[in-house]
């Protein structure tokens, strides 16, 4: 059957609508017009003309509106935190999210520009930022883990976890010291085994603290049940200190540390923009991997010009490997929040989806 001329024109103008709108409503629109045309034809030619005028008159305006709405929707989705619960972020919340990354980045950048001489002004800026971090900590604890405070609160988690980790490490090494006669064993293999053990201990400590937090704080548990990737964001800042640890004695490592922090910031940016939880986690994992690998490469590069450098390649490689050896623990810790969904649904908050 030949299609009516109103439908033909309608179909042509419909092609000017945004693709998503066409996919969503195109067939429905054509169906409704086809039915209206049939109804008007039954009534007479005048009704067909009136219908054509009404339909074709409104189409250009509707087309423009669909494009504007599409654009507005796109802009909304690009807003930081638009896909997170209670998002998108306000400007000051966004600033708070990046505060734990900004402080070490500024520290390194200012240190580089000042050539290691920290003036009163630079110290003042540092104190100001630390004050802001303190305010975010207090707000995060008082308001019980709002999303924008999670990265900063992750640093507190680090202080606790790393403190316990150091105690356990000291105890272990003190106990084992008589066996190999020195603080660290000479054998690389045993050293790697030690690192694996300490990694496991660190993972266990962080997991334990997170479990205690989830048991004690129902708002945090509810947040984790709504979006488990937020817990990964919470522990993401555990990586920041690792960019600076083990490398205090190195001269000239600052540019690599700066790049590492920028990579971590990029990971955080992707986290708050991307819609899928899995891609967000993947970004955090990739950023952590890249950041610590960058520090490792940096140590390898600058090692020969250090005062304590030796021509032994294995020593250089071992020193460069230090940050990378901490990676497995950090990557596993980032994935731990996946276990939140394994918690009994009857405990704490029962999500609507689970309830259904």
């Amino acid at each position, binding site marked *: 059957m030949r299609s009516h001329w109103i439908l033909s024109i309608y179909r042509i103008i419909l092609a000017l609508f945004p693709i998503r709108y066409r996919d969503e409503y195109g067939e429905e629109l054509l169906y409704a017009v086809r039915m209206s045309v049939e109804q008007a034809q039954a009534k007479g030619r005048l009704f067909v003309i009136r219908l054509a005028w009404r339909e074709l008159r409104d189409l250009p305006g509707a*087309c423009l509106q669909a494009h504007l709405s599409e654009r507005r929707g796109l802009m909304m989705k690009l807003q930081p935190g638009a896909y997170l619960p209670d998002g998108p972020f306000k400007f000051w919340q966004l600033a708070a999210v990046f505060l734990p990354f900004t402080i070490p980045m500024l520290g390194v950048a200012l240190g580089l520009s000042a050539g290691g001489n920290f003036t009163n002004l630079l110290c003042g800026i540092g104190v100001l930022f630390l004050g802001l971090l303190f305010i975010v900590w207090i707000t995060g604890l008082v308001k019980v883990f709002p999303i924008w405070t999670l990265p900063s609160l992750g640093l507190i988690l680090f202080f606790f976890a790393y403190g316990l980790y150091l105690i356990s490490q000291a105890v272990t090494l003190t106990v084992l010291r008589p066996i190999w006669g020195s603080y660290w064993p000479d054998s690389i293999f045993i050293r790697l085994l030690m690192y694996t053990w300490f990694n496991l201990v660190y993972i266990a400590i962080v997991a334990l603290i997170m479990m205690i937090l989830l048991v004690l704080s129902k708002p945090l548990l509810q947040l984790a049940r709504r979006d488990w990737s937020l817990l990964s964001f919470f522990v993401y800042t555990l990586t920041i200190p690792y960019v600076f640890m083990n490398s205090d004695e190195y001269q000239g490592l600052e540019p690599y540390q700066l790049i590492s922090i920028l990579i971590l910031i990029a990971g955080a940016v992707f986290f708050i923009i991307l819609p899928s939880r899995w891609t967000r986690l993947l970004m955090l994992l990739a950023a952590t991997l890249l950041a610590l690998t960058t520090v490792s490469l940096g140590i390898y590069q600058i090692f020969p010009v250090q005062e304590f450098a030796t021509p032994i390649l294995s020593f250089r490689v071992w020193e460069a490997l230090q940050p990378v050896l901490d990676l497995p623990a950090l990557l596993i810790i980032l994935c731990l929040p996946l276990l939140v969904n394994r918690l009994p649904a009857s405990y704490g908050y029962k999500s609507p989806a689970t309830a259904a």
Partner: protein
Amino acid sequence: MTNATPSPPPVSEPVFFILLSLVSGQKHGYAILQEIQVISHETLLLSTSTLYGALSRLEEQGYIRRVPTGQQLAPGLPRKVYELTSNGLTLLHGEAERLHRMNHIAQQYLPKASA
């Protein structure tokens, strides 16, 4: 003078009739057009593009929602059937109340103006 509770925003005539057409139950787009013709005594004839533009916005704002019915427009193309949400019903009541109030005010003042 300030109101303690904010009243719902005024709605346009097409939106008012779209919401009203859904009070009697779930409908697809063309059925909504037909219902509007009947309840407005053919004083309001909406174009399909205006209807679907409004449906899209109302759905986004949570005043109506799509319901899965199993009906198909074509094979593999489910028909979009809409129903009123509680927010939509509240909006409709608010608008009816507002129109009633305006009508009452107009009734008070119009005779004086024409006198």
